[in-house]
C-alpha cells in the first residue's frame, strides 16, 4: 500500500534551487511559475518556512517591469501568467503589501480586449488561460472592478463547446487545463451559471481511465497534472463524488519517486517540480492526511486565501 513520501518531496524541491544544469538554463524564462509550483507544494506539505522568504521576494520584485507586469525571471518580458504567479507567491509569504496593487491592476486591465478576452502580453495572443490569470490575480488583489468583468465572463462562456467543456478560444478543443481555467475564472467572478455542471461533469469523469489516473482529453494517456485540473473543476462544480477517488489516489502515489523524491507524470517517468506540485495538490483535493487543504479556484492553500479575504489565518471574519 503506497504512502506519500512527504519529506522526500520536500527535500527534492529544496534541491532544485541549487541546480545549474542545462535544463535549468532553458527553463529560466518560466522560473516564476517554477517558484510558484515549488513554494505552494512546500506550503501544502507544511514546509514553507524552510524557504528563504526575503531572498525570494527580493528576487521576485526585480522581475517587475515599469508597466506593472512581471516577467518569468530577471530580464524577461512581462506576461500575465507570471504576473499571477508573482502575486500568488507574495500571497504565500503574506507580502502582498510589497507591491503597488493598482499598478498591477492597471497592467492587467490594459490586456483586456474589446470582446472581453485577455491577451497574454502586448503581442496580442488570446487564450482563456489568460482570462483566468487576469481574473484570479485581480481577485487576490481585490481589484476585480478594474476590468469589465461581465465581458470577461461572457467571453469565457463563448468558449464553451457542445460537450460542456471549454477550449482556449471560441471553438477550441475541450481540454482539461483550459476547462480548469474557465471554470475557476467563472467561479471567482461569480458566473458559474454559464457552466453546464452535469454535462461537463460527465466529460471530466470520462477522463478517468481504468488505472485510476486522469487524462486531459479523450484517447490520451493519464497524467498526474490532470489530478489537479480535472479534480479542481469537479470540486468547484460539486461533482467530485462522481469519480473513483481511491483509484486516483493510488495512481498519484504510484507516480512518486520513493528514493529521490518528486512526482512524475505517470509511473516510472522522470520527476519534475511541475508534476510534484500538481500531484500534491491533487492529493490535497482528495483530502489526503498530512497535506493542507488547497483552494480549487485560486490554487493556493485555503488558509492563505482566507487570510486575504477574511484577514486571519484561522478563518474568523475580521472587521471588514
Amino acid at each position: 500500500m503506497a504512502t506519500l513520501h512527504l519529506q522526500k518531496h520536500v527535500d527534492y524541491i529544496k534541491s532544485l534551487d541549487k541546480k545549474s544544469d542545462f535544463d535549468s538554463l532553458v527553463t529560466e524564462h518560466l522560473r516564476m511559475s517554477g517558484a510558484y509550483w515549488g513554494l505552494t507544494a512546500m506550503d501544502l506539505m507544511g514546509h514553507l518556512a524552510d524557504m528563504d522568504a526575503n531572498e525570494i521576494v527580493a528576487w521576485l520584485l526585480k522581475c517587475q517591469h515599469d508597466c506593472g507586469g512581471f516577467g518569468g525571471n530577471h530580464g524577461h518580458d512581462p506576461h500575465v501568467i507570471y504576473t499571477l504567479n508573482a502575486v500568488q507567491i507574495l500571497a504565500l509569504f503574506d507580502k502582498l503589501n510589497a507591491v503597488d496593487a493598482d499598478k498591477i491592476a492597471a497592467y492587467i486591465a490594459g490586456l483586456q480586449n474589446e470582446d472581453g478576452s485577455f491577451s497574454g502580453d502586448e503581442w496580442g495572443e488570446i487564450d482563456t488561460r489568460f482570462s483566468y490569470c487576469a481574473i484570479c490575480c485581480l481577485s487576490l488583489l481585490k481589484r476585480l472592478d478594474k476590468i469589465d468583468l461581465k465581458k470577461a465572463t461572457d467571453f469565457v462562456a463563448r468558449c464553451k463547446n457542445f460537450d460542456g467543456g471549454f477550449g482556449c478560444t471560441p471553438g477550441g478543443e475541450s481540454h482539461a487545463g483550459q476547462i480548469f481555467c474557465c471554470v475557476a475564472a467563472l467561479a471567482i467572478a461569480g458566473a458559474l451559471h454559464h457552466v453546464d455542471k452535469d454535462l461537463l461533469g460527465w466529460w471530466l469523469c470520462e477522463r478517468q481511465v481504468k488505472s485510476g489516473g486522469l487524462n486531459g482529453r479523450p484517447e490520451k494517456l493519464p497524467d498526474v497534472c490532470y489530478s489537479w485540473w480535472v479534480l479542481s473543476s469537479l470540486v468547484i462544480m460539486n461533482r467530485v463524488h462522481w469519480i473513483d477517488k481511491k483509484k486516483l489516489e493510488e495512481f498519484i502515489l504510484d507516480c512518486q519517486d520513493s528514493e529521490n523524491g518528486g512526482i512524475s507524470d505517470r509511473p516510472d517517468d522522470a520527476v519534475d517540480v511541475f508534476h510534484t506540485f500538481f500531484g500534491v495538490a491533487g492529493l490535497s483535493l482528495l483530502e489526503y492526511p498530512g497535506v493542507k487543504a488547497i483552494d480549487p479556484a485560486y490554487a493556493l492553500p485555503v488558509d492563505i486565501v482566507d487570510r486575504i479575504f477574511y484577514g486571519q489565518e484561522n478563518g474568523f471574519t475580521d472587521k471588514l
Partner: protein
Amino acid sequence: MEEVVADHGLRLLHQLDSILDSHPSIDELGFVHPMQLTSLHALEDFSPDNQGPFFTRMKRRGKAQEASINSNEQAEDCSRRIEGQEGESELPGYNSDDDSGEVEHGNGKLLYDEAAFWCAHGKLAIAVPALAPLYKTAKAEFRVLQKQYAKVTEERCESASCCNGKEMDGRINGIKSCLGLMKEERKASLEKELMKYTRSLVIVNCDFATAWNARKRILSSMAVCEDTLLAELQLASMVLSYGPKSEESWAHRRWVINHMISGGVQQTTIDSVLKADSKLVELIAGRSTMNYRAWRHRHWLISHMSLSQVSAELEETKLWAQSHIADNCCFHYRRCLLLGILQGVASSFSESMKFPPLVHPSLSAALTKKPQIAAHLWMEELSWNEELIKHYLGHEALWIHRRFLLWGFGHNSKIFWSSSATTVAESVVTVSFERQEESLERVMQLAAKELQFADSCIAACGPDVMEDANRQCEFAASYKLWLLSLPGEKGEICKAVEPNLISIQNLLKEVIPHRQRLWDGLVPNIL
C-alpha cells in the same frame, strides 16, 4: 576558464550563423548525442526519405537516466517547458545511392566544428554538449544588445519629438540630421545583431518568449517586407520541427501572418502561406499526435478561409483522419470546419446562433446561394463516421464525433431541414410552422435510428472479452445516454422514442461498472 568557455560559445555561435545563412531552407532540427553526430558525419552521400521525420524524439525515463539531468519532460500539452534535449538516431530512410551530399567542410567551403554540428539536405543536427555554451553566450550578447537597443530607440523618440514643428537654423538642422543618420545606422546594426542572436536563442530554446518578442519588436519597427516575413516563418517551422508543442513558436507564426495581412502583403502570398500552414500542422501532427497547439493553429486558419477552402479542407483531411482515428484533435478540427459551414448558413438566415460567427464573410455569402451544402456535408460525415465505428472497434474519438453530429442536428434542425428545401428566400427568418414540425420530426427519426445503431453495436460485441470489443460496448452504451439527454429545440428528442429510462441505467451499470459513481450522480440529473 570562463573566457575559454565564452570563446568556445562565441565560436559555436558564429558557426551556427554561417550554417543558417548559407542554408536558408533548413526544415528540420535535431539535438543529438555526440556519437550520433559522428555517425551522421560518417555517412557518405545520401538523401533523406521524405516520408517521416529525420530526427525522432526520445521520451526521457526516470531512474535509468544520467543523474545530472533534472528532467523537465514536457507534460501532455499542459506545460510550457521544452521537451527533453536528447535527439535521436536518424531514421533508416536514407538512400545511399544519391550523390548530392551537401556536407561541406575543408577546401575553402563552409567550416564548422564537426563535433558540434552537422548539416545536409535541409537537416541540421546540433550536439547536445554544444547547446549550453552556445546558449549562454547568445544570451549574454542578447542582454547587452537589448539594453543598447532600448537606449537607441528611446533617444530616437526624444530627438524626433524635439525636431517637430520648430524652426531650426540650417546648420543645426544639418548636424541633427547627420546625428539622426548615425542613430539610424546604429539602430539598424543593433537590429541585425539582435536578429542574429535571437535566432540562435529560439533554436536552442523555442519557448524563450523574450527572444521571440525582440524579433517581433524589430519587425514591427521596419517596413513590411514579404521576404523577411517569409524567412521568419521558415525559422518558426524549423524550430517547430524540434519543439512541435511550443506555444511561443505557434503564436509567433500567427503574429507574423497577421502582420503580413495588416501590412498589405499581396493576397496570393497570404493564401499560399495559409495553405502551407495547414499542411505544416498536418505534418507536425503526424509526428506528434494529439498536438493541441498545432491543431489550435490550424483552427485559427479557418477564420481566413473561403467556402471552397473549408470544403477542400474537409475533403483533404478525411484520408488523414482515417489513418489517425485515435487523434481527437483531427476530428475536432473537422467539427470546426462543419460548424463553420453551419454558421455560414445560419448567418444567412440571420438566426441567433449558440456560438459566435467565426467565419470569413465570403463563406457566408457563398452559403447563401447553396444552403443545402450544410445538410449534405453533415449527413456525409455521419455515414462516414458509422463506417469507421463499425470497422475500428472501441475508439473514443469516433464516438465523440458522433455525439457532436447528433448534437448539431438536434440543435439546428430548422437550418438543416429547411435548407434542404429549395431556396433561401423560402426559408429565411420566419420558418413556417409546418417546416418546424417537419424538421423536428426528421430529428426524432434520426435519433431513433441512432438508438438502434447503438443497440446493434452493443449486440455485435457479444460476450467477447477482448479489450476493443469491451470498449465498443462502453462507448455505445454511453452514446445511448447522450442521445437520451439531448434536449433539442423543443424538449427532449429521444424521450418520445425510448420512454423506459430504467433500462439505460441498468445497461450502464452492466457495461460500464467502473463508472458507477458517475451514473448514480449523472443519470437522475440529465434524464
